[in-house]
Every structure is written in C-alpha cells, then in structure tokens.
C-alpha cells in the first residue's frame, strides 16, 4: 500500500493484541473506568441516544408542518416538541458531541499523553451529564416542558405550567459537566504535551479544543447563575425578571445570551478543529495559514463574548447599544471567514481524496459558509428587525449547528472510527449517507430562509396557507436527512464486528494518533513519543518514507 508510512513500519515490532477495549471486561470496568478512551465511548453511546431522541421531536414537528392547520399534534404538544428538540439537541448533543466524544478520545493521544490531566474528574463529567440526562428524561416522560429552549421570562417563571424547574435543573447540571471537561482539557493541553510538541506543532483540532474549553470554563458559570435565578424566581417568587415582582424580563435575555451566544462557539469551534485536521489528512498538506487558523479560534472565543445582545435587537435595547452589538457581530465573522478561505486555499495543488470524512468536510465548508453569511443579514440591524424571530433565523442557525457542527462531527467520527474501533466502516455506504445528508439538509433548511423572509414566524404550530409549498419542501428534505442519519448508525455498528481491520494509519495521515495501534493500547503509547515534526508535516513524512524504503 502506498499509504503505508514510517509510523507503520515502526509499529511492526511493537504490535500487540492488547488494547483499551479488551484490556478489561465487565460492565463495571466501563462504568468505573478512568480511561479517557472508554469515557469517550460512554459519551458516544449517550449522545447518540440523545441525538435520536432530539431527531424524533424534529421529525414530528416537520410532519405536523406539512399542512397549514395544526392537525397532527395539539398546540401544547407541538410547543413541547420544539422545546425538547432544542433542549436535547443543544445541551445533550451539540455541546458535548465533539469535545466529549472525539475530544476525549483523540486529544490526549494527539498530545502524546497517557490520559487527560484529571481522569477521575473526566469520569465525573460523564456522570454529571448522565444525571442531567436522567432529569431531562424524567421531565420528558412526566409531561415535558413548553417554554422554548430559551426559557424566556416571565413566561417560564409565571405562566408556563409545565416542568420548567426540572428542565432548567437538567441544564444547570449539564453545565457542570461541560465546565469540568473544559477545565480538564485546558490543563491537559498546557501540562501534558509530549516532549518536542510545542504549541505551533499542535494539530489545529487541539487549538480549537483549547479555545472551546476557555469558553466552556468562562461562559457556562453564567448559565448556572441565570438558571439558578430563574429557578428561585419560579419556586419562591423572588423578583429578578418578573416585572410584576419588580424584575426586568430583558435582563434575563441579556444573562441568558451572555452564556448562550458563546455556547454557539462551544458548538462550532470544535467542528472547525475537526475540519482542519480532516482537510490536512485528505489533502496530505499542511493547512495554509496554520497560525492564522489557530489564532482565529482564540479570536472567535474572545469576540464571542461581546456579541450577546444581537439576539435582542427588537427586544427593547437602545439604538446605540444595538449599533455597538451590530458592529461587533460583523467582526466576529472575520475569523470565521479566515478559516474558510484557508481551508479552500489548502486544496490548491493538494492530493485531494474523496473519502467520506473529506466529503463531509467539503459539505461542512459549504454549509457553514451559508450559515456564516446569513449571519451577516442578521447583524445588519435594519434588516434584522424583519427577519428575527422568523424561519430565517431557524434556517441560519441550523446551517451553522447542523450544516456545521453535525457535518463535522460525522466527518470526525468517520475519520477517527478506525482508530477508535480498529475497524473500517463500509466506504460506499458512508459516501451515500454523506450525500443524502448534504442533499436532505439543503432541501430541509434552504426553503426556510425564504419562508422567514416571506414572514413565517418561528415556533408556529399552524401557519397561513401561502407558506405551505415551502414547508412541504422542508419536510421532504427532513425525510431524506433522516435516512442519511439512520444509515451511519446501522453501518457503523455493523463495522464493529464485520468491518475490515484497520491498520494503525489507514489514511496515511500525520499526527501522533496515527502512530499508535488501532485501537490504541490502554496507555495510548508503549513509549512516550518524541515529536520532531510540525503538525501536518507531509513533506517530512514523504522524506521519511523514502528513507525507510531505502533501509
């Protein structure tokens, strides 16, 4: 195989059948594990279940919206479904997906470390996540919640008679899971890099996880504070936000978005990290403008804290603060644009492979670009007045969250799947699924931009008849999308037993994770690796290959 590398050759002597999966057996060896790889698997199973649950709610909504009348679900049920779709997808899938699954598994290996800095805290993160998930599931089973995932007051504190307290408690607990993960990653990246692995030799996935972790650590406590205030107001009537009690409902929106806008970057920054690693691996090239891409992650993390009030342009803020937040919102788009252009430029004179992870990432770049530029429409405050709170916004953030984060998550899952399981997924099926996801996604969400501009407000159970054509298109797209997501669940599980065995480096990629066996041994490396090459140093790899062939 021409994809064999220096690292493959090195491994021949050290090859062993023992790995993190067969090292120990029994349920307790998983539930009490401190191995970051096993914890990543626990997360993989949990977030996958939550994704299916959130997807079920979405599908029911789309079927309801086939016709203008609210005829399938009652209004209350519909309202609960869009609320729980949002809560489940954001708090239990999008935020943990890439960091807690892919980050947990790959980050320590990319650093040449044996584990994260605090393995027990890592396990605690998962238990907190599960505790939050159980509270969330109890809420869903006992009747659900209907406030929208944003919990706007005074509706959430005084008017809703659903399980607001339980849901916010679940969000509160889940927040600590992400704070601890962020803390763990930051310390690990600072303290546990292999000898020779300087900051500028780090894969861009690590830079992205670092930026994400900073945001998790600084923003999530604000969510905890906000939700605590909300719970206190709802439970005992202390007037923080309810005007009838002397509070201010707009204050709630400021506090909520002070977390929840940075949370958007918690969701998209890891996706950008995956994109950089996958683009490099499947072009066999160093990412163009490595330092620009690395620092743009930090710039996004920083600027992401300064734009929260762009969710409030019609909510009753002053004209001048609207202008300031509009200005800052335009400039948070610059570092994202830098990344898109750099990924594109990397393809020039590259060796572009059309394997599944790359297909997902090419799709990611396209969809994220649409998600990004439609953000400019919303940052233009004179135009935002018309399109905010309509389907235009729904389309915009799904292009970023699903077209961006979910596409990149799928890319990363396929890219690292051979490393995680030691098996290859079936390439043909995977390409088909990637294509279905891309087509289905666009058919679902592109019509919603038009729908929003025509004036259909979001969170509508029934709608005016002239909106039907676009809604039917959207529901048709959602059906294609659903098939595109169900396929990988089937063939990935199949591949665990029946997939072709993967070598240590099936892609011929550069990076420490590809120098150890697949699946990796419990301690990741038999000897601590010493790094003498830059990230994505394909020319050096080529040279090394030449040398080994000469031996």
């Amino acid at each position, binding site marked *: 195989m021409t994809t064999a590398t220096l690292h493959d050759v090195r491994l021949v002597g050290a090859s062993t059948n023992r790995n993190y999966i067969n090292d120990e057996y029994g349920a307790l060896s998983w539930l009490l594990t401190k191995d970051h790889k096993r914890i990543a698997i626990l997360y993989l199973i949990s977030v996958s279940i939550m994704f299916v649950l959130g997807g079920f709610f979405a599908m029911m909504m789309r079927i309801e919206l086939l016709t203008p009348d609210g005829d399938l679900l009652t209004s209350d049920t519909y309202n609960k479904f869009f609320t729980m779709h949002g809560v489940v997808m954001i708090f239990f899938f999008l935020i943990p997906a890439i960091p807690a699954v892919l980050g947990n598994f790959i980050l320590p290996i990319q650093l040449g470390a044996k584990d994260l800095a605090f393995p027990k805290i890592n396990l605690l993160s998962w238990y907190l996540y599960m505790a939050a998930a159980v509270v969330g599931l109890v809420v869903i089973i006992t009747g659900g919640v209907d406030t929208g995932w944003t919990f706007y007051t005074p509706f959430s504190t005084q008017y809703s008679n659903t399980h607001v307290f339980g849901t916010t408690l679940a969000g509160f607990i889940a927040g600590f899971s992400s704070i601890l993960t962020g803390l763990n990653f930051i310390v690990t990246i600072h303290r546990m890099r292999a000898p020779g692995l300087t900051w500028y030799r780090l894969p861009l996935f690590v830079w992205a996880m670092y930026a994400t972790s900073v945001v998790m650590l600084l923003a999530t406590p604000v969510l905890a504070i906000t939700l605590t205030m909300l719970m206190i107001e709802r439970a005992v009537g202390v007037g923080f936000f309810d005007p009838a009690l002397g509070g201010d409902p707009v204050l709630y929106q400021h506090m909520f978005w002070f977390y929840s806008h940075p949370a958007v970057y918690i969701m998209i920054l890891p996706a950008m990290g995956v994109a950089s690693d996958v683009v490099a691996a499947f072009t066999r090239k160093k990412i163009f403008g490595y330092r620009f891409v690395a620092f743009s992650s930090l710039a996004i993390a920083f600027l992401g804290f300064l734009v929260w009030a762009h969710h409030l342009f*019609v909510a009753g803020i002053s004209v001048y603060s609207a202008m300031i937040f*509009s200005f800052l919102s335009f400039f948070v788009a610059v570092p994202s*644009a830098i990344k898109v252009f750099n990924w594109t430029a990397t393809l020039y004179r590259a060796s572009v492979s059309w394997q599944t992870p790359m297909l997902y990432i090419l799709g990611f770049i396209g969809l994220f*670009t649409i998600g990004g530029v439609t953000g400019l429409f919303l940052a233009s405050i004179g135009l935002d007045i018309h399109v905010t709170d309509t389907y235009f916004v729904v389309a915009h953030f799904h292009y970023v969250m699903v077209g961006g984060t979910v596409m990149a998550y799928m890319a990363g899952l396929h890219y690292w799947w051979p490393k995680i399981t030691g098996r290859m997924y079936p390439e043909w099926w995977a390409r088909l699924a990637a294509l279905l996801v891309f087509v289905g996604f666009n058919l679902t969400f592109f019509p919603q931009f038009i729908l929003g501009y025509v004036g259909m407000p979001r969170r509508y*159970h029934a709608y005016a008849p002239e909106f039907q054509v676009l809604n039917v298109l959207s529901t048709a797209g959602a059906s294609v999308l659903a098939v595109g997501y169900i396929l990988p669940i089937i063939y990935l599980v199949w591949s665990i037993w029946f997939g072709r065995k993967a070598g240590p480096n099936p892609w011929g990629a550069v990076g420490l994770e590809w120098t150890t066996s697949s699946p990796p041994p419990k301690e990741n490396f038999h000897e601590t690796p010493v790094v003498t090459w830059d990230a994505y140093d394909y020319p050096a790899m080529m040279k090394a290959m030449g040398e080994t062939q000469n031996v």
Partner: protein
Amino acid sequence: MMVADFPLWPDQASTFARDVDNLYIFLILVCGTVAVGVFLTIFYFAIKFRRRPDNELAQDYEPPKLLEVMWIAIPSVIFMGLFVWGSWLYFHMSRVPDDALDIYATGKQWMWKFQHPTGQREINSLHVPVNRPVKITMASEDVIHSLFFPYFRTKADVLPNRYRTMWFQATKTGRYHIFCAEYCGTLHSGMIGWVDVMESADYQKWLAGGTEGSMASQGEQLFQRYACNTCHTNDAGGRGPVLAGLYGRDVTLSTGTVVKADENYIRESILNPQAKTVKGFQPIMPTFQGQVSEDDLMKLLAYVKSLTGPIPQATTTKGVTQ
C-alpha cells in the same frame, strides 16, 4: 398565480419595505457571490487536484501570504459598509415622526387589542390610513409578545409593565398579516390578525363609527374616577404637579436629576409614584399598581398627552424655569 403560490417576498406595503428589501437584495448579491465563489473554487480544486497515482502526496507549495491580508482586509471593508447601511436603516426605523397618528396596542395571551385615539377598539384587527405615519404604543398584559407586520418589514417585542413604541407608514391599501413573533404559550400561532390599510377618507368614515368617546375623554373620566384630579388640579395650588403640557417635557426630580416625561415616565408615575418624585412635591401619591388595567392605563396616558397649553408658574418646572 405561480408567484402567489410560491412567494419570494411579501408585497412592499410600507415606506420601510423598499429600504429593507434593497439591503436584503444587496446582501444576497454580495454573500451569494462569496458563497458561490467558495463552492466553485472548492469544487474545482477538489476535482483538479484529486488524488491520483501521480500525486499521492501534495505538492510542496505554499500560496502567497499576501492572500491572508487580502481576505482579512476585504471582508472587513465590506462589513463596515454593511454595518453603516444596516445601522442607518435601524436608526431611521426607530425615529418616530412627530406627526404620527397615535394608536395603542395591548398584547395578551392570545390576542392583540388596539385602541384608536377617537375611542374605537378592535381585537386582532387594525385599521390604519394609507400614506400617514402611524405610531403604536404597546404593552403586554402578561408575557412577552412581538407585534410583527411582515408586509411593513417591522416588528417590536411587546413587554409587560413597560411601554414600547414602533411606527410605520403604509403605502398600499389592502389587508396584510399581523403575527405574534415572540413565543408566548399555547396559542402563540393563533395570536394573529389583519391590518387593513385604507384610503384616508375611508379611514375617517370608519372612525366615525360609534364609540364611547375618544380615548382622551374616556381617560378623563378615569382621571376623575380614580380621584387623580383632587391632587393634580390644573393650577399651581395642587398637591400634585400640574399635568398640562407635561408630555415630552423635561422634569426635575427631587433627586436633582432631569428626566423626560415620556410614556414610560408617566406609566411609572401612576403605578409606582415613589420611584421618581418631582422636585418640590411630597411623595404622598398612592400606588395604582394592579388597580388599573393596561387598556385603562393607555386611556389615562392618552388623556395626559392631550393636556396641552401653557404651564402655570411655580409648578413642576419651577426648578428649571428662569
């Protein structure tokens, strides 16, 4: 007919509509060009440089670093332009013309109530004259709502316990949607209505329909019923400040700060009078929180706004008059 079944944007029925649509179209052109450019480039590179036996490894080529400067600088300049355009429009949309027709709106789960100065009241329906600026003063009786006129390209959140204003000038007669755009509970999607834009003459005819008197005169009756007039006499001797000419004027408070007597000031002074006491007066007014409905508050507001005329000497403004 096909276009009607598959609309790309709603009719332009207000003075804002064309401005908003122009910015929208400009953004589609600029962003569309960038997005399509990125797609085509990716597609072209991904095909031209696809992996083949002769390029198993990429060429050792770095594009010029000048590109980085270019794609930071050019988007920044475009963003500045968009920022200025969007802000100009927002600023314009937030400045209510002085000669606007006053209409009052109350949102509650799940209906819109409108009151006209002449006293007409309507639910989930609003009649306005064409080619005349209309200012809507709004409050919510319960949760946050958002009054959305897609054909006028404007909306604003309606908050409990606080007045907000929005305005538009309809340019085309017809019947257009009113939506609630902020999720407000069970029948959020049923909190809808129609705005009828009428020729001026038709609007006058519509206004001539029977009412219980103008909002201001109904407000005056409330003013007496709540015994406001025992203290707020229209001369300098009252225990409360004279209200004639108050609306829109600067008021000096007992703390020395000067505030503008706008809708929210008047509202607060009725519901929570101790919050801002006018200089020279005792904080003796009782609170009316919970006693006056939103609709009645708007009538009182309309009455206070209707009290024009010279301000007698030695009254609320004695601190600032010469």
